[in-house]
Every structure is written in structure tokens, then in C-alpha cells.
């Protein structure tokens, strides 16, 4: 294929792509499948010590005693330090619970020493639930009041009169629990401070940015700190900053001048490493006789602990001009919510999709049709098309319960189908740079400090230059996850691909065109174009036809090294919003209340699917995550003492293999944007909503609270009208 020397890099047309837009097994898979991938947890350095935090188990308490002497005398103990003082208050459950830290030669010794730290607390009433926070006599947990009102309500009177004039109305309380990220690799770092600087190994979503944070805490210039995150065991929005654990590790490293390994253990991870805020929504919503929304009002409480919580506002992605819901934050003495895969959206989805679903049956329009009637514009056209796809895949046409819920069979089982829509923003932002270097031995190195959370970033950092240079993916060596490389961006809000892939493309393009100029000089002709394909380089006039490696040999002692930034590549990034739809088919055991998901399907627009295999993995991940949220997950606190009762995986349940039905992840190949974007957030938005709606469709049990546990299903069955 011959191409002009374009002024700017352009993505090849789909028909011309040979590497991208295909299934690309990720380049680091063999390291991961064989246990050779080195995570922060796995870093072992000579003379390294193990640090461990000591946490109080209750919020809102005063420290009456704190005695570190016994711990200091334990075998193998190197250091014990206090992080709170006698008389100091513990305000909230979370990183504020850290009372002390211990450092020992082995993890077991550190554990023993942590147990030997003695402290006594005098606890006050805990304020860990919404009800406790709203009690008129409740103590003020934040010092700024327990309720902070946000926007709304607007035009309350008008909305109320519209509601009263609506053909159909629903009024209900919809709740979602606090959810945890549950990164399998806990938060933490290894700090190796030496005389000439420091190397910090951290499980982080922000490799480039965190290097500076650690430098500050170590009292070093930013240039003296190298941050390494070769592989990380999940982030999901919870791993942006070094955290208190990072700060304490730095203090220890400065004091001991030995490498420090400080990772949270699993109960600590649940207590202080972040969560998705809970939601309590009291909503009233109406529609006309055709199922078209007329008005929405109510109050939405975001339950983000000390944080504000997240909620996208109503009517979420549907159309309704007259919406006047009040959104406010209700604070409790719990750690602040953090970003978690599409912050606020799964909550907004559940409230909106459930209430709309109720109107679908009240109006007789049915759950499939009512969604189509309440989206609009170009976005609406895409969502309608997506609904058609998932309806076809899930078997809606042949399903009997189109406008009324079904009934259980003689054995007590009922089968239903439900729907939900997804969105998030597309695109990227500035900050990343990429360098592509081609040497005379034929090696190609593509470098960007970006982290790979498991999304496949490392793979496209190699695959994009491979496409540009007519090579195979394994011919390009990707280098990522190291702050000494050209900067990456933080991975939050699905912006990584939209911010980094265009820059990699631009750098590869610059490298290829620079290479072509050098080749033209070598053969002494001007105006040649070159074809790069199948590991060969051919000039348009036929004077050059060599292997890639032979072409590289012509470079002599000066390699090609080209760096690009977002300016060079931003036209390659998709704009607008992401769209998707999901459908679930469930079987409800009406005798026990148990819900089994039988089938789940998702379609998602993705711009150019750089790696179709990794994109399907992300879509599956979204479905699995929301299935888990819908059926199992819930942070539970004891309201008497404020203890976290779900502090490990036997009490905080997440979906396992037996919960996973056949799932189909469909990449929307009709997306007309020939540009790149991340898309993971959108895929985690609607799955639990679709499952809840499927339960109603099966048997008429309306689940207004997540998770859909058997007791709640039985209760909803008993309340059927």
C-alpha cells in the first residue's frame, strides 16, 4: 500500500489495517500466566523490611492509652512508630483509623508486633448509617454539618402539578449500598531510598504523577525519584495518590535507610482503600399514556462518608425536561468515597432504569419500547439501535412477558428479561508523550510511562507502531509503567486510551516519515513514497525492496528517535459520548428467592477497537462487575459500635465462576467515529439495572434495593400487588 507523506498522522481505514482492529493476545500475557509478572507486592530487595499498619476498628473515638513498648520488644522488630497521640480523636473509619506502624524483618514478625501494640479507645456514638447521620440529635461528623444540599429542586410547583396530571406515576425509595473496589492487589508501595535518590515501586494508576508526590514526601527533587509499576493488580479508580500508606512508608524509609515494603492486608484494604458511594433516593416520576416521561421529583442522598458521594442527576440519560430532584450529600463517619468505574453512573442507572421500568408496566408500553420512546437525538438513535441488538441476542422476540410480568412454573421458577442503557464520555486529554526509537539492529522501542491496569495499554503501545511500520506486534518492544519514560496520563475515567493511543500513533508516524527521509537520502532520490508491509520496505519506484531489518541497517550509527505529544495526535481521539445497552435473562426461584442470571449480553461503541480481544474483555468485565454489584456486594457496618462487618471476602461477597452465565460482548462496528477512546466505564453502568428489571419481568417482584439478595426477593414477592 502506497501512501502520501501526510501532514498529520491518520488512522488507516479498517480495510487497510493489518494489526489493529483484530484480536491481539496481550504482550505481557506469558509473564502473567507463568507467575513471572512482577507486581509491587512481589518486589524483593536486599535488606528489605516489612512494614505494617495498626488500625483501630471503630470511628469516632478518643485514644486513652497507647503503648508501643511491648511491640518494640518483639522478635525481629526494627521500628515501631505512633501515627496518633494519646488524647487524639479518631474521626472516621478509614485511613483516620491508623494509630501506629510497625516494621520488622519478616511479615510474620510484623504481624506479631502489630498485635502487641496496645491501645485503649473511648468511643462515642458511631454515626455510620444514613439514619444515624440524619437524626436531629446526631453529632456533626464533618464539622460542616451532616447534610450538604446540592442542586435543586427547580420549578417544584410546576413539576408537582405535571406529576399530578400524569397518566401514570411511580413513587418509591431506591437504595444502593456502598461498594468496594476490591483490587486483588492491595494498596501499597515499596520505597527504596538510597544516597543518590529513590526508586518507588507502587501499585498506582498515575505513574508519572505519583513520582512527584513521593519525591515531596521523601524530601527529594522530583528528578531523583523513579516510580515503577510494571504490572498492577487492579485499580478501578481507587489508586490515584500514594495515600497515607505511601506517606508512612516514606517516613520509615527516611528513618531506617532500608528498603521498606508496605502493603495493606485485605481487612485494611476494605477499611481504608476506598469505595463507591451508596445512594438513597426517594423519587416520584410520571409519564403520559404513551410512556413518555412528564416529570421527576424527589430527593437523592449521596452516601460518600466524609466525601460528597457521586450521582449523575436525573433523568440520567433519558429525556425529561421537568426534573426537579434535590441531590444532597449525607455524611457519615466513614472514609470518603473514591472514584470507581464510572463514578455515580451505576447508581443513577439503577434509580432511573428501575423507576422507568415500573412506568413501562403501569402504562402497558413495555420495558423495551419505553426506553426507545424516552431517548432522543443522535444519541437516541444509537441507543435504539443498541436496544434492537441486545433484544435480538437475548431472545426478546420469543419471550412471552412483553408488557406484563410472568408467573412461576409448577416448580416455582420464573424466567424474565430486563434492559438497561450505558453511557460515559469519549476522548482524552493532554499530557502524555511517546517516544518511538528505531535502531540499526532492527529493534523498535515504543516508550510511554503510562500504567497498564490490566486494560491492555502495554499491548497497544507496541501494536500501534507495529501497524505503522508493517511489523508484527512482537517486533516492537513496549516500555511502560516507569516514570523515567516520557510522561503518561493518569488512568481515570476511561481516558487512558484516548490520551495515549493517539500520541503513540503520532510518534510512530513521525518515526516512519523520518525513516523515509533517511531512506530517500540513502538511495539519492527525492519524492519517493514507501510501502511498509509484512516486515518489508519497498519504495514506489522499485529501487528499494528490503526487509525491515535491512532498512534499519541503512540507518548507520544514528537511530531514529521521534517523540510526539497530544498536540500531534489529538485529532485521532474520539469525541462525544459513549453508548451501550445491556440485557439480562434471569431465573428466579420464587420459593427461595434465589436469582440466577442465565444469560447476559452487552453492546458497546468503542471508536476504533484497537484490540478487539481486550475490548471484549473490558465489556465482559463491566457485565461481571455489575452482576456482582447487583446480586452480592454490600458494605455492612454495625450501627452499635461502628465496626466494619464486611472486612474480608467471606463476608464481602463478589461474583465467582458459578455466578457467571454465558456472556456475549458485542463491539459496535457501526460506530462511525474512526478515532480512539477508552470505554471501560460505560460497560459497568447498566448490568445490575437490567438484572433487577429482569426479576420483575419474571415474576412481578420489584427490587428497589441493591443487592438483590434472596430475602429481598422474597419480600418483594410478598408485596406484589
Amino acid at each position, binding site marked *: 500500500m502506497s501512501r502520501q507523506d501526510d501532514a498529520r498522522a491518520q488512522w488507516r481505514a479498517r480495510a487497510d489495517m493489518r494489526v489493529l482492529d483484530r484480536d491481539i493476545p496481550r504482550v505481557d500475557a506469558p509473564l502473567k500466566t*507463568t507467575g513471572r509478572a512482577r507486581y509491587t507486592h512481589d518486589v524483593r530487595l536486599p535488606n528489605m523490611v516489612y512494614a505494617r499498619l495498626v488500625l483501630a476498628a471503630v470511628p469516632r473515638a478518643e485514644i486513652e492509652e497507647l503503648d508501643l513498648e511491648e511491640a518494640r520488644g518483639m522478635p525481629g522488630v526494627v521500628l515501631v512508630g505512633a501515627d496518633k497521640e494519646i488524647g487524639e480523636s479518631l474521626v472516621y473509619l478509614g485511613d483516620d483509623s491508623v494509630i501506629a506502624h510497625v516494621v520488622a524483618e519478616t511479615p510474620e514478625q510484623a504481624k506479631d508486633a502489630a498485635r502487641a501494640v496496645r491501645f485503649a479507645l473511648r468511643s462515642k456514638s458511631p454515626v455510620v448509617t444514613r439514619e444515624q447521620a440524619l437524626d436531629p440529635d446526631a453529632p456533626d461528623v464533618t464539622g460542616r454539618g451532616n447534610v450538604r444540599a446540592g442542586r435543586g429542586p427547580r420549578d417544584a410547583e410546576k413539576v408537582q402539578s405535571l406529576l399530578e396530571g400524569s397518566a401514570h406515576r411511580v413513587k418509591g425509595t431506591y437504595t444502593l449500598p456502598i461498594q468496594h473496589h476490591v483490587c486483588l492487589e492491595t494498596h501499597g508501595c515499596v520505597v527504596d531510598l538510597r544516597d543518590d535518590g529513590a526508586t518507588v515501586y507502587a501499585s498506582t494508576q498515575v505513574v508519572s504523577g505519583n513520582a512527584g508526590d513521593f519525591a515531596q514526601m521523601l524530601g527529594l527533587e522530583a528528578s531523583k525519584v523513579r516510580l515503577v509499576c510494571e504490572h498492577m493488580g487492579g485499580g478501578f479508580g481507587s489508586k490515584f495518590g500514594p495515600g497515607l500508606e505511601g506517606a508512612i512508608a516514606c517516613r520509615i524509609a527516611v528513618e531506617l535507610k532500608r528498603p521498606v515494603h508496605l502493603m495493606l492486608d485485605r481487612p485494611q484494604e476494605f477499611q481504608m482503600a476506598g469505595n463507591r458511594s451508596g445512594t438513597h433516593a426517594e423519587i416520584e416520576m410520571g409519564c403520559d399514556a404513551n410512556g413518555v416521561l412528564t416529570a421527576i421529583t424527589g430527593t437523592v442522598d449521596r452516601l460518600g462518608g466524609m466525601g460528597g458521594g457521586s450521582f449523575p442527576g436525573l433523568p440520567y440519560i433519558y429525556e425529561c425536561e421537568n426534573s426537579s430532584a434535590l441531590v444532597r450529600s449525607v455524611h457519615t463517619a466513614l472514609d470518603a468515597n473514591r472514584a470507581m468505574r464510572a463514578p455515580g453512573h451505576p447508581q443513577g442507572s439503577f434509580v432511573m432504569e428501575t423507576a422507568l421500568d415500573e412506568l413501562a408496566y403501569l402504562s402497558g408500553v413495555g420495558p423495551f419500547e419505553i426506553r426507545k420512546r424516552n431517548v432522543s437525538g443522535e444519541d437516541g438513535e444509537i441507543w435504539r439501535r443498541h436496544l434492537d441488538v441486545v433484544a435480538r441476542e437475548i431472545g426478546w422476540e420469543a419471550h412471552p412477558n412483553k408488557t406484563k410480568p410472568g408467573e412461576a412454573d409448577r416448580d416455582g421458577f420464573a424466567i424474565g428479561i430486563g434492559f438497561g442503557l450505558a453511557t460515559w464520555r469519549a476522548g482524552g486529554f493532554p499530557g502524555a508523550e511517546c517516544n518511538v526509537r528505531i535502531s540499526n539492529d532492527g529493534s523498535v522501542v515504543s516508550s510511554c510511562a503510562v500504567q497498564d491496569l490490566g486494560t491492555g495499554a502495554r499491548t497497544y503501545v507496541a501494536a500501534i507502531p507495529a501497524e505503522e511500520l508493517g511489523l508484527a506486534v512482537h517486533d516492537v518492544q513496549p516500555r511502560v509503567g516507569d516514570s523515567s519514560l516520557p510522561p503518561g496520563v493518569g488512568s481515570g475515567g476511561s481516558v487512558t486510551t484516548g490520551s495515549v493511543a493517539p500520541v503513540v500513533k503520532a510518534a510512530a508516524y513521525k518515526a516512519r516519515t523520518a525513516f523515509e527521509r533517511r531512506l530517500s537520502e540513502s538511495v539519492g532520490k527525492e519524492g519517493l513514497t514507501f510501502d511498509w508491509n509484512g516486515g518489508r520496505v519497498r519504495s514506489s519506484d522499485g529501487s528499494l525492496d528490503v526487509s525491515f531489518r535491512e532498512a534499519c541497517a541503512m540507518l548507520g550509527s544514528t537511530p531514529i528517535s521521534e517523540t510526539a505529544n497530544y498536540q500531534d495526535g489529538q485529532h485521532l481521539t474520539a469525541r462525544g459520548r459513549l453508548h451501550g445497552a445491556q440485557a439480562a435473562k434471569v431465573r428466579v426461584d420464587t420459593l427461595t428467592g434465589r436469582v440466577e442470571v442465565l444469560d447476559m449480553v452487552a453492546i458497546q461503541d468503542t471508536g476504533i477497537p484497537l484490540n478487539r480481544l481486550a475490548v471484549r474483555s473490558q465489556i465482559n468485565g463491566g457485565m461481571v462487575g455489575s452482576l456482582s454489584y447487583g446480586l452480592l456486594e454490600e458494605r455492612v457496618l454495625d450501627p452499635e459500635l461502628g465496626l466494619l462487618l464486611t472486612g474480608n471476602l467471606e463476608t464481602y461477597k463478589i461474583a465467582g465462576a458459578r455466578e457467571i452465565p454465558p456472556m456475549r460482548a458485542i463491539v459496535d462496528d457501526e460506530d462511525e467515529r474512526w478515532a480512539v477512546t477508552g470505554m471501560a466505564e460505560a460497560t459497568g453502568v447498566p448490568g445490575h439495572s437490567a438484572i433487577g428489571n429482569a426479576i420483575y419481568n419474571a415474576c412481578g417482584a420489584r427490587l428497589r434495593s441493591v443487592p438483590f439478595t434472596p430475602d429481598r426477593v422474597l419480600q418483594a414477592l410478598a408485596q406484589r400487588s
Partner: protein
Amino acid sequence: MTDRPVSEGREASTDPPSAPAPTPRGLSRRTFLTGAGTVAAGGVAAGGILEGRADAGPRRAGGARRVEGLVEVTLTINGKKRKAMVEPRTTLLSTLRHHLAEPLTGTKEVCDRGNCGACTVMVDGRPVYSCLQLAVRCEGHEITTVEGLGSPEAQSDVQEAFAACDGQMCGFCTPGFVVSTTACLERHPGVDRETIRRELSGNLCRCGTYPHVFEAAERARDARAKKEGGR
């Protein structure tokens, strides 16, 4: 640990609060009895085996072998004998990750109490949670970790199938899944999807890789069947 209130302000301990009870169940995790006389050793425990000391080695008492303090164990890991100095309460997981001269960190610690399967290894061909095994009890057994199944340059068929099907995202659960899948295919050569789901139900993934893990298991199964059939 948050599983016990801290009324007297001390981090909850998994150790029993008082002297060991006269049953193996009541033994401190820091003192453990091994060898032929486990039952008899219960009586010995009643006679006063107490907390471990850092410098003590294995000793015999009343016909039972008593181990306490720091002891040397020789473990057969991936076909090689490896020595380690461990305490009686040291788990196999911790031994692999922290107490070998060349640590084997492929086996992951996620929950450290038998919920998640990230630490799955094979002992005599059976999948076990290494966080629930004491290293001192593993002497004389064949231990296989994920590193022993293959290397990046020469992956096992199961590992190859995981790579081909994208059976890993962040990859932290992957070693456990690879070991469990390997064990599953050994036990059930013609395994169906339902059985795969059951056999892998002891492993948790957070990225949501399950559908591709199931495909990987089926791909490895089919490749083996083809190989068998071709003979």
C-alpha cells in the same frame, strides 16, 4: 483484623487467649506438631507445649516431633528441593513468597484466609490454598506452583490457552486460575462448561475475566483431545 471488637483496645488476635487446650484444634498457630504422633501429641500439648521461641529447633517429646521457634524445612517445589527457615505457623504461601532464598512470587496473596484462590498451588497433584497449609506439613510432598507449570518462553498448554483467549486482565488472579484449571483438566479430561464453572469456583477474579477463563479451559481441553486423538 476487624473480626473482633477492640474493647480493651488491642488488635484482635487469631491466637487463643489462654494456654493451649488439650486438642490439636486448640493449639497455638505458633506451635505445631508434626510427624506420626499427631494424636498422641495432643496429650503432649496438654503437658505444656507453649509459644515458640525464635532460636529453637525441632525436638522430640513423648514420641511426637515437636516443632517450635525457627525450624529448617526442606520442601520439594517444582521438582527441586529447597530449604527454608520457617516458624511452625508459617504458611506455605508465606514460605514461597518470603522465606526461600529465591522467592517464588507467582503465587499471590489476596485474602490470606481461604476465600479467593489466588494462592492456589498443587500438592501431590491436588489444588490447595497455600494460605491454609503450614509449610512444616508440606515436607515430603510434591509442591507445584505456577512457575513450575511453564515459563514465558515455554508455557504449558493451559498457560498458552490463557494467553490466547485473554484469560487475564490485571493478571493477579491468573496464577491461581492457571493452577486450578490445570488440576481440573487432569481430573476431568473431557470437562464441560458446567464442571469448569464448578471446579474454578474456588478462585475469584475482580476484572471480570471469567468468560475468557472458561474459553481458555475449553481451548486447552480441546487441544489435549486433539493431541490424544492424533496418536
